[in-house]
């Protein structure tokens, strides 16, 4: 054991080193480490937030797609209904037109038949008077026998 002046020198050198490390080394490194820890924590939080936001957006997009699909289906439904309505309307119109024209034709036919019947009646009355004139050998005065003729005409 040779304790000597080396002891003092070693103690001083050691103490000086501790002071240097304490002043110029440790605080800088710890500050850098803590800064980085903070940065990493912030980064992780930001990533978490972004993930949550993405999830939200995905959900919103899904809802909107569903709504759009529903709307499209509704529009198609309505269009089909409208087409059906138009078709029905057209059919109804056609049928009505048909009926109207049929009725008009029937009315014309009826009136024509009536007219023909009256003509026939007139001619029968004329023929009857001519026949009667021939039988009587003289002119029948239509005016004098107006009543008789009319009666005859209605009877025919």
């Amino acid at each position, binding site marked *: 054991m040779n304790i000597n002046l080396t002891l003092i020198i070693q103690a001083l050198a050691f103490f000086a*080193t501790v002071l240097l490390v304490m002043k110029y080394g440790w605080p800088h490194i710890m500050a850098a480490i803590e800064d980085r820890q903070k940065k990493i924590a912030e980064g992780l939080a930001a990533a978490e937030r972004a993930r949550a936001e993405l999830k939200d957006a995905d959900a919103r997009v899904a809802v909107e797609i569903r709504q759009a699909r529903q709307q499209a289906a509704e529009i198609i439904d309505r269009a089909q209904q409208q087409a059906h309505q138009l078709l029905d309307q057209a059919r109804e119109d056609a049928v009505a037109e048909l009926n109207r024209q049929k009725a008009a034709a029937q009315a014309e036919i009826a009136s024509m038949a009536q007219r023909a019947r009256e003509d026939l009646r007139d001619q029968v009355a004329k023929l009857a008077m001519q026949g009667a004139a021939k039988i009587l050998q003289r002119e029948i005065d239509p005016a004098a026998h107006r009543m008789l003729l009319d009666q005859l005409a209605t009877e025919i």
Partner: protein
Amino acid sequence: MAESAEQAAGGGMTEYIHHHLHNLQWHVGSGVFSVINIDTVAVTLLLLAVFLGVFITAARRASAGVPGRFQAFVEMVVVGVDELVRETFHGSSKLIAPLSLTIFVLVFMMNFMDLVPVDLLPWLGRASGLPYLRVVPTADLNTTLGMALTVFLLIQYFGLKHKGPGLFFKEMFTAPFHAHGFMAILLAPVNLLLRLIEEAVRPVSLSLRLFGNMYAGELIFILIAVMTLGAGLAHGMTYVMGPVQGMADFVWTVFHILIITLQAFIFMMLTVVYLSMAAEHH
């Protein structure tokens, strides 16, 4: 033939061991104390320069960005020490963590000099004109005691700072045995004596533990080296002792890696514990 070789080796062996355990000394004055172990101081200063260079470079370059390999290595050591200190010392102190780091790294580096082949540096020293060279600063009691005394003074400073002078001196007489009235006066000298022993034991145990381990480690390396001292290719024993020496050297080196790390760790840990005890109120 073998006997005479052994006798010759015996004389050489004593001289060899003595030579290896002798410091390169500079007598600055007369007296036993006024001597400086130049080799211990030089190696210590060299290691200090390396340590401070690496550490302060890392501190200057430290940034909160992505760390490089160098920065990551330094930060790994720093964070390891910081966590240990936080677990043990529950106060706030700017000194204790850097102190622990310095102790651990420095003691480790000084111990590590023991793993440099035991004859290499003395041989280089002799080649450049130095008669003696001991390269393990922690195998010199001056180093370990110097560090332990610094730690001792820091313990007292810590006690004074954290307790205040009143409580600091009062506790010398009132702890660990508490009493009231007359008994308190009776127990005061006992408490003081216990306190003085407790305080004196710490630097002694700290320094002797480290010194003893490193001195013994160095001595075993020397003894392993002695196995083939003065061996020549003509001796049959050379071919037996050579491989045995290689094996022994390897085994002891591997084991010694554990010891040097452990001793550095123990020195640091005990310092932290002593300092936190000094800061605690009884």
